[in-house]
């Protein structure tokens, strides 16, 4: 059979198209460049037959590369909870991220999910800074029937979370979900406060909450938060806003941590498990996905 060797000119146009498509899907510039470069290295010099479709081969290569980035070592949150339960201690999860990405709402959704799976949950109102933050978490707690441990506005966030953990230990509660204030990674004081929270409360998991509508800033955010406290996993929010969600790829690439869930709406049930296969289809617009636009909050 005749063989053809792929040369750069064969894939140039396809890669340029893919480049623009990925950029438009909000995959960060540096990540796109790196991906394209890797694909070039992989394909140039490769032998194919005349029957092979070079466009398809390129597309497959890029999809596989993306899947690899997204398929980081998984975290089984339920397994962690079960193991801690056996040891008779609560699982502590702290949520961090910049302002307005959806930490408080995500905590309510995850509490709802865990409760439905039969775990007992307590929430810690660790955002003692933003106006209305404590009240917001309390209303969620009331709506889903979960207790909220709080101090006054302006109180020490680490102390609130510590109290919630003590409460969980005393009452044999399975999970503590701790809210924290939104903070910009450029704000050294607030980043230090977050470090203190993690140092004092020694959580089982630190979850970074990122907004799917974020552009190139996603990389910087993830890297800085990871550097400061060590992120274990990621939840990406607002995926229902027709976001392609390239930020997932940027974050995964930047810090090499798994995406655990996606926030897909304004109801308590709108938190879905992350699936790389499904996500790649979504990224390339191969699947028309409709999310509910009903609102519970």
């Amino acid at each position, binding site marked *: 059979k005749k063989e053809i060797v792929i040369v750069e000119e064969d894939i140039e146009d396809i890669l340029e198209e893919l480049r*623009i498509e990925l*950029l*438009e*899907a*909000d995959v*960060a*510039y*540096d990540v796109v460049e790196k991906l394209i470069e890797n694909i070039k290295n992989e394909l140039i010099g490769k032998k194919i037959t005349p029957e092979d479709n070079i466009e398809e081969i390129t597309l497959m290569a890029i999809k596989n590369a993306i899947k690899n980035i997204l398929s980081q070592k998984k975290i089984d949150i339920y397994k962690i909870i079960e193991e801690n339960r056996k040891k008779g201690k609560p699982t502590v999860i702290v949520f961090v991220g*910049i*302002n*307005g*990405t*959806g930490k408080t709402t995500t905590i309510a959704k995850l509490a709802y999910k865990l409760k439905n799976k039969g775990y007992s949950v307590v929430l810690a109102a660790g955002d003692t*800074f*933003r*106006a*209305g*933050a404590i*009240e*917001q978490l*309390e*209303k*969620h707690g009331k*709506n889903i029937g979960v207790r909220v441990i709080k101090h006054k*506005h302006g109180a020490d966030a680490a102390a609130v979370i510590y109290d919630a953990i003590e409460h969980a230990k005393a009452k044999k509660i399975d999970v503590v979900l701790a809210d924290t204030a939104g903070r*910009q*990674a*450029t*704000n050294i004081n607030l980043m230090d406060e977050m470090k203190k929270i993690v140092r004092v409360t020694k959580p089982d998991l630190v979850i970074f909450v990122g*907004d799917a*509508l*974020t*552009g*190139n*800033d*996603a990389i*910087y*955010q993830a890297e*800085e938060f990871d550097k400061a406290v060590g992120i274990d996993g990621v939840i990406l929010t*607002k995926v*229902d*806003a*027709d*976001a*392609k969600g*390239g*930020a997932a790829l940027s974050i995964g690439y930047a810090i090499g941590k798994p995406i655990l869930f996606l926030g897909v709406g*304004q109801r308590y049930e709108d938190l879905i498990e992350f699936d790389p296969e499904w996500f790649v289809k979504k990224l390339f617009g191969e699947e028309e996905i409709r*999310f509910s*636009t009903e*609102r519970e*909050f």
Partner: protein
Amino acid sequence: MLEKMSENLTKAINKIKNAMFVDKKLIKEVVKDIQKALIQADVNVRLVLNLSKEIERRTLEEEPPKGLSKKEHIIKIVYEELVKLLGEEAKPLNIDPKKQNIILLLGLQGSGKTTTAAKLARYLQKKGYRPALICADTYRPAAYEQLKQLADKIHVPVYWDNKKPEEIVKEGLEKFKKADVIIIDTAGRHKEEKGLLEEMKRIKAITNPDEIILVIDGTIGQQAKIQAKAFKEAVGDIGSIIVTKLDGSAKGGGALSAVAEIKAPIKLIGVGEKIDDLEEFNPKKFIARLLGLGDI
């Protein structure tokens, strides 16, 4: 704000400044650098491609005006095209002191509307106005408590009731007849939530606002253009844009895309969480700084 973008653009500009000759190859190289800087700053990809094409075309076709070297001319073109994108002049928020002014805030979830509402009240208060706030967000838990806590600090009244947003707005307008500016905070919504966009339309019809302000998160990426378009289609003319969270690492290019899409100027920018962290926006100064040119 926009430090990295500025850095990259300055690098591109310096490439021209330091070049021995300006030829086609150099121009292409510089245009590519500008492309990269703008895309990294989250400016819409298609917009960047068009913009860079225009810069390249003008640079190759146009003769430098008298007194300008070829190099200076390229820098001028880049500056002009970016300024064109942002709207030429600084456009302050216009308040008519002879009547009651109604300002309606809208935007995506978590973009910063509520904090901005309070900041705006503070900004107007400092200019001698007596603002009042209406919380027309009935979805988000404790939306009213949030706005109330912020407003209490600056002694600005807030109206809210456990009713439909349309009714809250009607009653609030009735209650605040003496205020000279009324700022209406609304719930976050996005383009897929058609019902909520309809609700937005109804609130607009009731309030007949003097100014509709789109509040945009400085970190937003490629979605900025299409979301801004959906808001414009729902409420008609959006008078201005406020970009938030520019104290962080975001470069704010997504906001530029929204500006280009809905042809509304950025009037103010949010630069922190404190109530006084709102600044007036000046496009020319901003681009000049972006390009490391100083004041032109």
